[in-house]
């Protein structure tokens, strides 16, 4: 057959890794129809709703000039969800049964099966994002080549549990290391056809910012508290004197004015703190994202990130406000901003050669995301 050369193969300078050309006007009909059908089916339609939305977003995202294709079906999510429900139900029933048996031996022993059950559920919940990622990759196609993921969800869940149990022992200083190691593991297990994703992160490179973020937040709280107390202290003392003079009669006039001033002071201090803390947090998160992107490659394609603290803050705070003030009806705008932000700040150098990129050898799961939908509150699309 004749080979077609319309697939772009940029070389040299970093360019946007992905192009996104979705439009809010196109998302709204999907969103509203999904909402309506989800309501009239008592929520059952949500698996098909997620699928419809993903199909749209994937189809509006291109890599090397070729659009991604989402091939998942709502039924696969639905069956996965039901199967996970059966597994969880069976686990629960087993624990109840064992507890009843152990109760005859010793009343205290009856707790053991439930402790084990909680641990198992925790491992499943921590491993669920892994298998969910496997499903999504297996349903993501580029030029007819699908993604894949190797490795075991349970092993990943166990490892996550171990890592997260270690963090309190290190006074939480291990958090950046844990975040990077787990992300690295998920990325390194992923592939697109014969092209392997590879990531090598170094917690040492982000730890400084992490420490600064924690110390900065504490300092910020101290400074705001100190300044606030300097202003509020005399006012409180004044109020105290005034109340004593009133012998507990309801104060009005100067005292109630002062109460209002105190409330304004408190709200201002809280807002300043949250905004400041969010800035500090965003600076850390942006560095994490840049570090992850800069040290990830897909075969010969080296990724890089341009994520900045301000950009991230603008995205997150903006989306929060949009969602809250529209009671959720602004979701398509939030989605659009998210997709634009990610694709606008993720760059790539080098390209995949379609002539040599071959089909994935990873087996695609038949159903998907059951545990993730069961155990994770995330009904989101990503």
């Amino acid at each position, binding site marked *: 057959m004749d080979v*077609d050369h319309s*697939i772009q193969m940029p070389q040299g300078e970093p360019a946007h890794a992905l192009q996104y050309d979705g439009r809010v006007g196109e998302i709204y009909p999907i969103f509203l129809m999904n909402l309506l059908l989800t309501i009239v089916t008592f929520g*059952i339609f949500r698996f098909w709703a997620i699928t419809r939305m993903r199909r749209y977003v994937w189809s509006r995202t291109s890599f090397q000039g070729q659009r991604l294709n989402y091939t998942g079906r709502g039924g696969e999510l639905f069956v996965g969800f039901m199967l996970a429900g059966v597994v969880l139900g069976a686990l629960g029933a087993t624990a109840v049964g064992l507890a009843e048996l152990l109760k005859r031996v010793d009343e205290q022993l009856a707790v053991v099966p439930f402790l084990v059950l909680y641990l198992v559920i925790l491992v499943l919940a921590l491993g669920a994002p892994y298998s969910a990622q496997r499903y999504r990759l297996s349903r993501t196609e580029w030029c*007819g*080549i699908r993604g894949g993921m190797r490795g075991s969800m349970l092993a990943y869940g166990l490892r996550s549990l171990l890592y997260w149990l270690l963090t309190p022992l290190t006074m939480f200083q291990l958090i950046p290391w844990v975040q990077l190691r787990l992300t690295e593991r998920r990325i390194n297990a992923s592939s697109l056809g014969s092209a392997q994703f590879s990531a090598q992160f170094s917690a040492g490179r982000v730890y400084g910012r992490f420490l600064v973020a924690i110390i900065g937040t504490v300092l910020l709280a101290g400074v705001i508290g100190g300044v606030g107390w300097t202003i509020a202290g005399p006012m409180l003392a004044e109020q105290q004197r005034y109340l004593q003079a009133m012998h507990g009669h309801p104060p009005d006039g100067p005292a109630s004015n002062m109460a209002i001033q105190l409330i304004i002071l408190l709200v201002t201090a809280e807002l300043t703190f949250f905004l400041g803390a969010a800035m500090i947090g965003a600076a850390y998160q942006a560095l994490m994202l840049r570090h992850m992107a800069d040290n990830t490659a897909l075969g010969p394609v080296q990724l890089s990130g341009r994520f900045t603290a301000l950009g991230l803050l603008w995205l997150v705070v903006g989306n929060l406000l949009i969602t809250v003030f529209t009671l959720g009806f602004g979701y398509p705008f939030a989605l659009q901003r998210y997709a634009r932000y990610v694709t606008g700040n993720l760059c790539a150098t080098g390209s995949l050669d*379609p002539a*040599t990129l071959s089909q994935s050898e990873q087996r695609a799961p038949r159903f998907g995301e059951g545990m993730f939908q069961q155990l994770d509150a995330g009904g989101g699309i990503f």
Partner: protein
Amino acid sequence: MAEGAGRYFDGKRAAAHLVALAVEGDSLRLTGGGGAEAWKLRRVRLTDRLPDGTAWVTLRGSEGRLLIRPDDLPPDILRALRKERRREAGRVWLLGLSGLACLGGVAVVLVFVVPRLVAPLVPFAAQDWLGRAVETQMAALHHRCTGADGHAALQRLADRLRVTAGITRPVPVTVLDDARINAFTLPGDRVIVLRGLIDTAEDGDEVAGVLAHELGHVAHRDVLVMALRQAGMALAATALGFGDAGTLTTIGEQLTTLSCSRAAEASADASALHTLDEAGLRADGLGRFFRLLQARHSFELPGFLATHPPTADRIAAVTVPAIGAHAFTDAEWTAVRAVCQDDSD
């Protein structure tokens, strides 16, 4: 036969091949430089159009993908693909609706059929365990009344009635110090009477009527059926992903507020009259008690009737002449009324 063009991804390599398209019979024929493929139209699927005017065509069970430009295709090819798309949409609707119908069917079976079938199979030990657990839970909230004479009188009456009704196992009666006007049956053949009911009743025959009614529920296993029904609903709801998994405690709580169906209530009423009559006791107490409650203001309609208020039919059905002996002697009735007054000293 008109020919169209498309870009074919074989699912082995990412590189695209230019192919010529034609409809031949029930197949879409893809021809390119070296090879040809025939895609059965009924296994073919066309996606929505992308912003650049292209659309994907996929073949079920194949990794091959075809990217076409619908506007540039000859009309006969496009018509063939669209027809498949419409058929596909029809299939999706059919599948969706039948899926919903199936779920509905399963729910109906779980809620209405399974309980009646399974109830006789539940071992008594399990029922007893459940009933005991619920009773312990309730006794933790409301003091168990310990008046020995009153309790003995109630239990004597219950024993007499249950033997008459053909119930072979003993039915323990417990009075709880709760002002609500209620009485109910628990799994494991236990009857709970709340103090409010005894306080409200004008004489012992009314209490006897209610007791006989509860024994009717015991004889018919109504509570177990209702509990299984409730569990079925919880199961159906949980399976569908909304509603909380019904823990044992919540099932226990619900047991106390279970409302039996109208048919079950009517049948328990009928048993009550029959049992009292057989035992040679006056059977008019239940009817008088219903009327007494009905005369009260509706907002204080007690639990005993709140879920299924006595309709005129129900009252009429239990209105019978006062023939027979009183259920309690005067001394017994006095003791029953005092069952919740602490007699430990």
